[in-house]
């Protein structure tokens, strides 16, 4: 992926975040794509596919709950880590920094609402 890049490169199908694991950071996709999956019994369900600029793992910044999903690289993907501690310190100085995360979370809730409404009999 060249020398002028930021973040860490993950190979195809490499796990970036494991469901049930602990986390103290969130991630931003810089290049390539990742898939977000959850285990349900013996099956794994793909929830979404994220691309450049998309954020994942942000719930770890606000709760101490285990990771709610597994995220894997789809093809080669480059992902940047955002450390929890530095991010929270910065939000304390500048609360507007959280706006974009809240916006993304709102979009996800909207999509989930639509999905739930679609699945209800």
């Amino acid at each position, binding site marked *: *992926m*060249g*020398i*002028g*890049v*930021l*973040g*860490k490169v993950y190979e195809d199908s490499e796990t970036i975040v494991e469901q049930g694991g602990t986390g103290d950071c969130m991630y*931003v996709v*810089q*290049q390539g794509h990742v898939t977000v999956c959850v285990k349900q019994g013996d099956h794994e369900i793909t929830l979404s596919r994220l691309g*450049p*600029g998309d*954020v994942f793992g942000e719930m770890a910044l606000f709760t101490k709950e285990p990771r709610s999903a597994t995220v894997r690289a789809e093809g080669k993907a480059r992902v*940047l*880590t*955002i*450390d929890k501690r*530095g*991010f929270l310190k*910065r939000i304390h*100085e*500048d609360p*507007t*920094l959280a*706006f*974009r*995360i809240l916006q993304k979370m709102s979009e996800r809730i909207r999509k989930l609402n639509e999905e739930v409404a679609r699945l209800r009999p």
Partner: protein
Amino acid sequence: MELQEGARVGVVGGGPAGTLTSYFILEMAQRAGLSFEVDIYEGRDFSRAGPAGCNMCGGIVSESLVQMLAAEGINLPPPVVQRGIDSYVLHTDVGQVRIATPGEEMRIAALHRGSGPRGAAAGPWKSFDGFLLDLACEKGARHIPGRVKELTWQDGLPAVQTDGQPARPYDLLVGATGINASGHKLFEKLGFRYEQPRTAKTSMLELLIGREKLQDSLGNAMHVFLLDLPRLEFAALIPKGEYISVCLLGHDIDRELVDHFMHSGPVRSCLTEDYESGSEACHCSPRINIGEAKHLFTDRVVLVGDCGVSRLYKDGIGAAYRAAKACAATVVLHGVSEEDFQKFYWPACKRMQRDNRVGKALFLSAGLFRRLAFLTRAMLNVARSEQRPDSRSRALSTVVWDTFTGSAPYTDVLLRSLKPGLVLPFAAACCCALLPFGEGKGSG
């Protein structure tokens, strides 16, 4: 004194402070359901190589700033990032140590502020300042190329005069002129007693090495030098695509000092080829902000970036980002009166100023390390032991990292350096370094 729908904002200076202020003013205004007109006055053409397109800077975006920009939705793409830095090597007169980022991640961006040094052939890279200017324009700002000739007051509004154009009045005027051009002097004439900050002269060189040789010599590491050379505080070699940027900070830096540094043992050990005086592709002596500007704002006028308050020695672009955000939040959410800036913008500036005082003390103590070999040996030994895979602590390494990369506030660095987890092993290493049989020489 709130800005209303359709308010006009003039920004003098299209470097990071000016473009980020414009970007965040427009973004926050959009969130609040408002639409402003923002004009960015910038005479430099960032697509040009050499001094014509360059705002003269080492070109490092710190680890913390890379992350904060990403959280803001501003991701630095490969044409802008000349090299992702994953480690740095601290060189001293008694040895060196390599400190890597966690998880082998490229966390620091080395970039060109313009389109490369003088003589650089057109390449796939893009100017960082140009990238930010494009972002601001995509948000809705208008770039007005051309030099600002004069600033005046028209019916209580600040007005901008460029060559051959009538003066344009604005509801808010933002000064982001930096301190190397003379633009900040225009604000001194507006009559609100603005005084520019104290400055120091640095020296920057660009050496054309070639991509492969650069990979062999410096790799993806930034090299920082803490050498006991008269008049030199510290220096850095920053690898970029085809070039090495050499940055020197000290007192009265002249050609003699530059040559002395470049021919020193630690520097020669980094470069695969001997440096020849005068072989650099580009050379400049930019000034940096080291003091406190006075009276940064009045009704409808505010200064951001280097011409106002910046971080001491390090992370100037990060300081511009912080000031830009604070300014934008004040302007959109509160107002543009002097009281608004005093209440909501000044605290962010004051925080940086207070932190800089701590930074001054930290860099003074770095001077002690330069002069006392046993302290340096102890530091290197502790840092080396912390790099081992089985090491549980990176306390001293992260203090050294954050001091020399500017990735954390200096106050934070100081507090961490006083913790027992760092002090005790360091004190023990000092004792060993003082004993004749305990001298830890060699490279890390």
